């Protein structure tokens, strides 16, 4: 089935989210839509799926005009969508989730689950999925949950499948598996619209790439285009994908973690007696699939976790057991994993967020008094230095884009004297331009002789920035390897396979 969009335009107030977009997806084609956050990809897909109504423009399925004003119209036309945030009920089984909204009943009003169960088995067989129809959804890994969404679309006869940022939540292994699934679907004749901002994946599977910038189609290219070219088309200027890492002398160990164990509230060790150190002027990346204890380890380094055993030595001083305040002011800059939940107070102004951990220090505070003037003037300086795009530092930080929010966090953390930077997933959810900025700042800290501990699940990021790489698996550090390691070797380590040859 082919899908064609002609002149789709959608405005929200003064903002033109989609500006006469033309797009054609052929039968059995994987069509990637590439664009930064806020470029208008999701708006476009929500129009196709009937969640939004276009101001003007036409949608054609198999050369015939169709009218889509709500999701059921899209489903009837054979268009299915897998949302970035899954639309599944966690406590229901796979089969129950799939019949949801399409429930059929047998005699006496009994819900007919067995038909769905058979259909799931059939689709699983056809496409090589391994999904148990009776498994409770919340017990399944994220990758499998996503397959449940795909199966649901296929069972209801989707011939065009929209995948909205499907790899954002997946591990590298799960990502590879999804890409294989996509190719399998394509071979069976399903058309796929693949929305993403990850260049490597696009080049791996797409047949055709459409790049959207600020609501407009800026180019339609083939996957043979290089990553650098794709990135600069997305951002609208030349982008440095591989930041320049200057060679320089690496100093002595500045932070040493010894036999560090972190337990959760139930007493289970989520980080198990790990040992590592970071030297001044070095980036130590802690890689690993999400959920292997990295988040807890990162938080433990500033004593944010409640149950920590072992030792954390910062420049000769034991900081384990200190308060969070003392850990930060002993010289650790901390970029938390979730800027929304842990990094920022969204209803506070940008200026206030810039002093969240500095508000009772000079020059902001004199005794009890907080000097509003100095807070504002210092905020203006940070905004200029870190190129934070805003209207006024008095606006709520929630008015900023994701990239600018992260800049606020980084500007705050780097504006006090530090010895070590602990950055937890610092580029998660950011667009290419912002990622480039964050990478430059991390390397700048390294070049100025600070130790950087970078927690990241993104292999590309780890390989581009790290001097040494520690791989975490099930709460342990399996190996610490040098940056010459290959993608494949890292991938294996992240899956828990210890490869002796990879050790440094």
């Amino acid at each position: 089935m082919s899908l064609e969009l002609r002149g789709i335009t959608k405005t929200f107030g003064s903002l033109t989210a989609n500006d006469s977009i033309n797009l054609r997806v052929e039968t059995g084609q994987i069509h990637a839509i590439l664009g930064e956050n806020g470029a208008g990809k999701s708006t476009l897909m929500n129009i196709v799926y009937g969640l939004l109504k276009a101001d003007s423009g036409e949608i054609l399925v198999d050369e015939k005009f169709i009218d889509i004003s709500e999701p059921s119209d899209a489903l009837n036309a054979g268009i299915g969508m897998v949302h970035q945030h899954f639309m599944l009920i966690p406590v229901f089984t796979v089969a129950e989730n799939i019949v949801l909204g399409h429930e059929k009943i047998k005699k006496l009003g009994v819900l007919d689950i067995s038909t769905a169960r058979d259909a799931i088995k059939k689709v699983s067989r056809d496409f090589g999925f391994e999904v148990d129809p009776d498994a409770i959804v919340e017990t399944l890994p994220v990758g499998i949950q996503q397959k449940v969404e795909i199966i649901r679309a296929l069972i209801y006869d989707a011939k065009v499948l929209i995948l909205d940022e499907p790899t954002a939540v997946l591990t590298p292994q799960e990502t590879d598996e999804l890409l294989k699934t996509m190719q399998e679907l394509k071979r069976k004749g399903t058309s796929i619209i693949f929305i993403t901002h990850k260049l490597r994946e696009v080049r791996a599977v797409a047949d055709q790439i459409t790049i959207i910038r600020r609501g407009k189609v800026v180019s339609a290219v083939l996957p043979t285009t290089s990553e650098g070219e794709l990135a600069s088309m997305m951002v609208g200027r030349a982008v440095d994908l591989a930041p320049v890492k200057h060679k320089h002398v690496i100093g002595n160990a500045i932070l040493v973690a010894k036999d560090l164990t972190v337990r959760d509230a139930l007493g289970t060790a989520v980080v198990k007696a790990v040992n590592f150190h970071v030297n001044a002027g070095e980036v130590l990346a802690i890689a690993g699939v999400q959920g292997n204890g990295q988040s807890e380890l990162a938080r433990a380094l500033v004593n944010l976790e409640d149950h920590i055993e072992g030792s954390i030595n910062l420049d000769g001083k034991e900081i384990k057991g200190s308060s969070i305040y003392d850990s930060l002011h002993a010289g650790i800059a901390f970029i938390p994993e979730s800027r929304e939940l842990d990094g920022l107070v969204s209803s506070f102004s940008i200026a206030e967020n810039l002093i969240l951990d500095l508000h009772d220090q000079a020059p902001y505070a004199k005794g009890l008094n907080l000097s509003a003037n100095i807070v504002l003037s210092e905020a203006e300086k940070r905004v200029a230095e870190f190129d934070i795009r805003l209207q006024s530092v008095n606006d709520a930080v929630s008015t900023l884009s994701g990239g600018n929010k992260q800049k606020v966090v980084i500007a705050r953390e780097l504006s006090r004297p530090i010895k070590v930077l602990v950055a937890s997933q610092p580029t998660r959810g950011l667009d290419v331009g912002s990622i480039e900025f964050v990478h430059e700042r991390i390397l700048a800290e390294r070049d100025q002789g600070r130790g950087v501990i970078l927690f990241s699940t993104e292999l590309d990021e780890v390989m581009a920035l790290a001097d040494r790489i520690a791989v975490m698996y099930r709460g342990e550090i399996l190996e610490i390897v040098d940056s010459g390691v290959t993608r494949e070797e890292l991938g294996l380590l992240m899956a828990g396979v210890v490869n002796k040859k990879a050790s440094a």
Partner: protein
Amino acid sequence: MRNALSKFGQAIKLPGLSFFMAFTITGLIIAVSDAKVLAKFSSPLDFITSALASVGNAYLALFQGSVFDVNLIKDGSFIQGFYPLSETIVTATPLILTGLSVALAFKSGLFNIGAQGQFIFGAIGASYVGFNFDLPIGIHILAAALTGAIFAAIWGGIVGILKARTGAHEVILTIMMNYIAAYFILWVLKTQTFLRPGRIDPIAPEVNENARLPLLAGSGFRLNFGIFIALAAALFVWWLLTKTTIGFKFRAVGANAQAAKTAGISVPFVITSTMMICGALAGLGGAVQVLGSEYALNTDIAGSFGFDAITVALLGRAQPLGTVFAALLFGALQAGGRTMQSNTGVPLDIVQVTQALIVLFIAAPAFVRYIFKIKKMKSSAALTSKGWNG
């Protein structure tokens, strides 16, 4: 200036419309509950005029009881006509203080239902120092008021420490502490220390002359220095929240405790110190009530000042100035309601209906916007505590 005015207009638009609707509905209730009005049901014109007259009389009495009453002018003393306004302010004074207590807690993300209990402890402390010691003028007031505030700060602080240490929910804790306080005062009033000589009913001796707050408009009015204490407290809360590092911590924890914690702000410190300051504010309310108008501690000293405080703080959007205005309004309704009851026979309880309606409409802004077809305002940040999961 124009900008500031339009901002102010925006800020009071919703409360203003809520008042309007609350008074309209109250008027309907007054009209249909008046037998004289209902008797004219057969003739529509008479029905409407008598309904309007009934409601008009009731609201006139409400005004006469709360602001100005020409009938009170005696012996050419025009000022005597303002006796109702003095009553409004006297009723509002403790409400301002308890309202601030609840409002400040809201800013730190806490729901302080405990102003009632804190008020009681403030009253007990102030009363004890007030009648039991002989101190010079000025110092006696200070000592009595401070003792009340400290008693209540400890009472509130217990909740803060329990929540900070164990994570127990402050709503449950403060409700339970209210019960304890309510029965504690019954017991205290029966002890030898507090029993007034020659009396067997639970009432404490009156506080000494030196401990009484000075009257501001002579002995003909109950208006006393307490209102200045309340206004100073409002100024203090405003200063604390907007100008100090402690207020910054309070607001940060109130808006996002997790981010505040990550930035090194001690959440247990904020919870404990907030509850202590809130306790002190409500306790000061109790002290002012004893030292300014009641003079003697009795079982009903707290009335419903601690509970109305929640409504007042909500109505004032947890802002110090807003809380002052909301408390004055409630004071006026209470004072006016009494006159309305005696002059027109409309029961005092109708005032509670009005208060409830105002809050109901304020709590459901979407409904008011729907009725008056107002677009959503940009800065109508919802006022919420952390609810049951905090």
